[in-house]
């Protein structure tokens, strides 16, 4: 047998992200969603389905199911607290802020605190699209589009 593993540089895997990936919130199904979209990253094979219940144009309930990497699952889990109560415009605003964070653009932290744990992804451009997939899929659902991917602009 090999010597036990030693501490490793965990890169983009902040402890809170790993915790969300292991025990995601909002994972599940809405039986009668007002909006639903599927996200797929061809390059990774990541898949996510996002379901929304809407009330007066605002997100009232949110659930997702994913077959995907830890970053997708953590992002999908952390998104929940940010989405509830927001309308499409606010979600677009959030997405712009989140993209800025992932691109390492700096600026003040995002108000939904948990998402800031993704800041280290700026160093890993190939994995950014994983973090972006859930929100891109939510945006697609709000637009009425059935599909989203984050490999192409």
């Amino acid at each position: 047998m090999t010597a036990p593993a030693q501490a490793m540089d965990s890169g983009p895997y902040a402890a809170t992200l790993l915790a969300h990936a292991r025990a995601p919130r909002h994972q599940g199904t809405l039986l009668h969603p007002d909006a639903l979209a599927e996200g797929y990253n061809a390059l990774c094979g990541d898949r996510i389905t996002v379901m929304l219940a809407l009330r007066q144009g605002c997100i009232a309930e949110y659930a997702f199911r994913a077959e995907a990497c830890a970053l997708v699952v953590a992002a999908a889990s952390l998104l929940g607290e940010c989405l509830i109560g927001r309308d499409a415009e606010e979600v677009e605003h959030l997405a712009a802020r989140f993209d800025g964070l992932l691109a390492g653009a700096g600026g003040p932290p995002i108000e939904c605190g948990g998402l800031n744990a993704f800041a280290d992804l700026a160093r890993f451009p190939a994995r950014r699209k994983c973090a972006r997939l859930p929100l891109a899929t939510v945006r697609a659902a709000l637009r009425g589009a059935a599909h989203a991917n984050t490999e192409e602009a």
Partner: protein
Amino acid sequence: MNVVLAETPLDIAALRAQFPLLARTVHGGKPLVYLDNANTAQKPVCVIEAVDRFYRERNANVSRAVHALGEEATGLYEGARDVLARFIGAGSARELVLTSGTTMATNLVAYSYLLPRLAPGDVVLTTVMEHHANIVPWQIVCQRTGARVVAAPIHANGELDVAAFIGMLGPQVKLACVTHVSNVLGTINPVAELAAACRKHGVPLLVDGSQAVPHLPVDVRALGCDFYAFTGHKMCGPTGTGGLWARREILAQMPPFFGGGEMIREVRIEGSTFADPPARFEAGTPNIAGFAGLAEAVRFLEGIGMARIAAREQDLLRYATARLREVPGLRIIGEAPHKAAVISFMVEGAHAHDLATLLDLEGVAVRSGHHCAHPLMRYYDVPATCRASFAFYNTEAEADALLDALLKARALLA
């Protein structure tokens, strides 16, 4: 596989010293452990210098100018064709079309050879384990003609179901296609046996040699196939190089594909006549510097000897496979008895991309994803795998480093 065991072992340290990139570090000083050779291989100094020298001393266009530089450049380019043709056992350099890689080679066959021959109901036979470059070109031309692509199944251990493949041959099959070595499973397919069966049914056989030419002695005539495609960047050569070998009588029948300079005999606005192969299929200015480098790559590989390379990589495969089995929850995908040094795996509770990122942080470069083989991923019902692929310049210590990094990553993720 005819591996002649080498009498003298390779001096791996001396070989590694010829690959500048292997001395790199990543992520703040971690020595690079490059195990993504099936994706692209590293280049020895002699190849890098051949490209460099071309631009410093020989740069000119080919087949066009009568001046001294032009003659030298043409000599280098045609010399590369000769070297490559001999390396893969072609009967003549005139049977070798130089391309930008395997993808251009299979698409050339699709558009020039196959498209004019397809009718509704016709079939192109491929296999479940193919790279997209050996699936999608056939789909594109089939879609235009009402023909269809079918795929022979594989066994759960990653071996081709040879009986099923042969059973699918028939008069409606206009082309059969198989990879020589799978880029995901490592499986070495019994090409000679498949070629014999294809010949019996009068079906031409195309072999994707992308993962074979860098790792095994290849003799296209001994294999008995009709087309053989390969790519330079995986065999220690420059990017943007490769080739398509085809039987002379087949090439002679193929209409031109790309139009442009060098592939013509006479151009009139009303219509043109075309050069003989291989020039007919090489329109425009080729990647001359790249081919100067690729010829050098072949000399480098031949200097080591393909049989010794194959034997060394078998040692690495055995060693690395045994070590990886120490990782709890690790499952190897592809365990054919004849396989090249490619190990795809999954680890329970850890997604392939997360593993790859964490391995990368330890300096260990592996590929994760679908490896341009969606149908194979679907067959195994996995979204993605990690793949460690070895070259002769890798070491047992690098396999150990892979193992250590995997154990750490697993501890973090699981």
